């Protein structure tokens, strides 16, 4: 069956009540068949019926051996990083999400985990950074906020023979568009807070693993450390997934229209969107993403930081906020908001300028969004 049909039905199989929408289980513990005998569920940190259903559909959609739902994206990334040990080395892309940058540099570093940042859209830079103790490469399927596109198969062909795990944070590119495991990744991570949940109302994270053994290692860590997704959020996430492919298709096509419109605007210096022919990795994006290039656009104004701030505050439909991927469109300034946890040297090195603006394109009509940007940018 096709993606959208599976997104609606897998994990929603009927239970004994016949409910089309399975009941929401909030139980923290489950009665067992006998002392020392275990039923399917025992204690909800280890697994619960509502979470298991959303994990099932996530694994199916990602083409993974299994999926795990976490209380946030960061909890998921942290769980993946706990596969490492003191002395391990991680290579990450130099335009990763600010929170992942902080996790690697301020938290993982306490456990003597070393980090190198490289421009991951250039697979050679990853090959060059490998050391004998390199255990993990962590990239985003679209870099953030510079919207770079890594060559996942090329990177996998470097990591796999070297026994290095390849983790892909695919928050910007949900499985409706791209499935990193099919391209050679070992672990796919999502901040499900974004497109998967899709409605700006549940904080959640996902890890999906290529094979059963890796899944079991991640599950062991999740259960041991406990950052699991609760029953109500599991339900909301699952509900969001039912409209995932519709939302993503519509939001991507709106984003493309907005990017094209911005590109001709005299007050816009450059637009970063993989669907534009001007994007440096446009051909690669087309190859891996087909005709849907995601919902995030970054662009630079011709004005200074003050002018950038003004524009970010002048929109009426786009809300001024971090986060992304939901039905409501958002606007933000990475230098002062999503990427403020980078130090300024790292920001400069990555090319995150003060006049950069990031848009998360929602589900409003494209005409309405363009009119809003038009009045905010002014002439």
């Amino acid at each position, binding site marked *: 069956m096709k993606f959208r049909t599976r997104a609606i039905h897998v994990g929603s199989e009927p239970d004994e009540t016949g409910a089309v929408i399975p009941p929401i289980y909030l139980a923290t513990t489950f009665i067992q068949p006998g002392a020392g005998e275990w039923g399917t569920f025992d204690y909800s940190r280890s697994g619960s019926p509502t979470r298991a259903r959303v994990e099932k559909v996530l694994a199916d959609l990602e083409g993974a051996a299994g999926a795990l739902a976490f209380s946030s994206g960061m909890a998921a990334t942290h769980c993946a990083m706990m596969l490492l040990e003191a002395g391990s080395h991680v290579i990450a892309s130099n335009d990763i999400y600010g929170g992942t940058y902080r996790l690697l540099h301020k938290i993982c570093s306490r456990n003597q985990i070393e980090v190198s940042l490289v421009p991951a859209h250039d697979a050679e830079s990853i090959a060059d950074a490998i050391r004998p103790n390199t255990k993990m490469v962590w990239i985003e399927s679209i870099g953030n906020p510079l919207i770079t596109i890594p060559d996942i198969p090329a990177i996998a062909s470097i990591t796999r023979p070297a026994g290095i795990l390849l983790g892909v944070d695919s928050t910007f590119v949900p499985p409706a568009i791209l499935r990193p495991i099919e391209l050679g990744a070992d672990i796919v991570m999502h901040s499900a807070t974004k497109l998967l949940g899709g409605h700006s109302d549940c904080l959640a994270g996902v890890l999906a693993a290529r094979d059963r053994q890796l899944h079991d290692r991640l599950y062991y860590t999740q259960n041991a450390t406990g950052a699991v997704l609760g029953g109500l959020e599991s339900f909301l996430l699952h509900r969001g997934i039912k409209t995932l492919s519709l939302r993503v298709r*519509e939001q991507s096509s709106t984003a493309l229209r907005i990017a094209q*419109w911005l590109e001709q605007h005299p007050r816009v210096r450059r637009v970063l969107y993989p669907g534009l022919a001007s994007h440096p990795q446009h051909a690669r994006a087309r190859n891996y993403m087909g005709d849907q290039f995601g919902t995030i656009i970054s662009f630079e104004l011709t004005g200074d930081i003050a002018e950038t701030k003004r524009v970010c505050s002048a929109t009426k*439909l786009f809300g001024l906020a971090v986060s992304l991927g939901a039905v409501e469109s958002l606007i933000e300034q990475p230098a002062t908001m999503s990427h403020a946890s980078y130090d300024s040297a790292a920001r400069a090195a990555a090319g995150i300028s003060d006049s950069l603006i990031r848009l998360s394109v929602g589900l409003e*009509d494209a005409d309405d969004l363009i009119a809003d940007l038009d009045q905010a940018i002014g002439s």
Partner: protein
Amino acid sequence: MHDSITVDSKPAPTPNQSSSQQPHRAGPSTVSVHAGEARQKPNDAITDSICCSSTYTFDSTQSILDYIHEKQDREEYGRYGNPNEKVVERKLAALDGAEDAILYSSGMAAIVGLLMTKLNAGDEIVFFDECYHRSREFCFKHLSRFGVVTHQVKTGDFDAMNAAINDRTKMIVSESPTNPHLTVVDLEQFVALGKERGVETLIDATLASPFNIQPLEYGVDYVWHSATKYLGGHNDLLAGVISGSKEKLEPVRKLRGILGCINAPHNMYLLERGLKTFALRMQRHNENGQRVAEFLASHPRVEHVYYPGLPSHPTHAIAKRTMKGFGGLITFLVRDADWRQTGSIIDACRIPRIGPSLGGVESLIEQPMVMSYFDYAPEQRAKFGIADNMIRMSCGIEDADDLIADLEQALSQS
């Protein structure tokens, strides 16, 4: 008060154009996402919070007095209203192009609330006979106990409806499209008759949804939706809504406060969340409905298809003139099949689940003769146009290719 969105934005300008065009109404998807909500919410949250409070406190006796004298727009007690239902009411009013909308705990609660307000002993009401059967049953069996007289005439027969109206008649009622025959009623004629005879008009637009038609534009007095269907859209809540003018709805709202059939805040949050994708879902329901109907119409095992988007439907011309799309509900007859053979086709389907209701993202399928009319005598079923070989399918938002492949395999079995 709340700074709710009226989105008076312009059509997409080209960058060099001056922005001096006429303001236009925001598109349906923008309305679905934003209308009715405060731009800036408490705690600056992007989504509305769920307010479960059963009662609301006053900081002083004076503020109670202000409230009583209607100087203060605020909540008092959960039976009269809550912030979550008010947001959704504003959103639904915007979608329906209405001044006001009132939400209820189910579609039936909504029509009961309206009719209990508007009809008194001695009043009469006339239905087209394909209206949702429970709404007619409520009038025939229960309003009759309070002295209200109910008539029904053949759907679309305006002469018969005209003849059934007398000087005690207060309201005429139609569904459009109807269920399961998908008859589309000419709203111009319906409203003209109501105006001419001085009676109010009520349309059950559940199967059309505000995306496909806006009956208030035609001058209908009240629009009724079971929001359990397309508006909620996820098969996970019950709700009903009546929309219309503030003036006409004010006493209806007052009675709701007495009867207590208000919906709960948690449910209202789910409805608001579901409405965010309403326009998008409707586009897909319309596309899937049309494609599946065309497939069925060309299938040798299918004797007849009822779908207003097909030229073969008797009300296709009206539908085409007045509706943006024709929804996800399709009824069809299986050629040379008895009720058992018809049931086995349903049993062979793998995607749609067997069950009543419609309008959710999951497709559903059922045999009206078994699901809703099993206890009726064959002559009664014939009178309602319910054939033994009839199947009703509510297309969800799955891929049309998958739905068609599934029906194909089900029809080729048994």
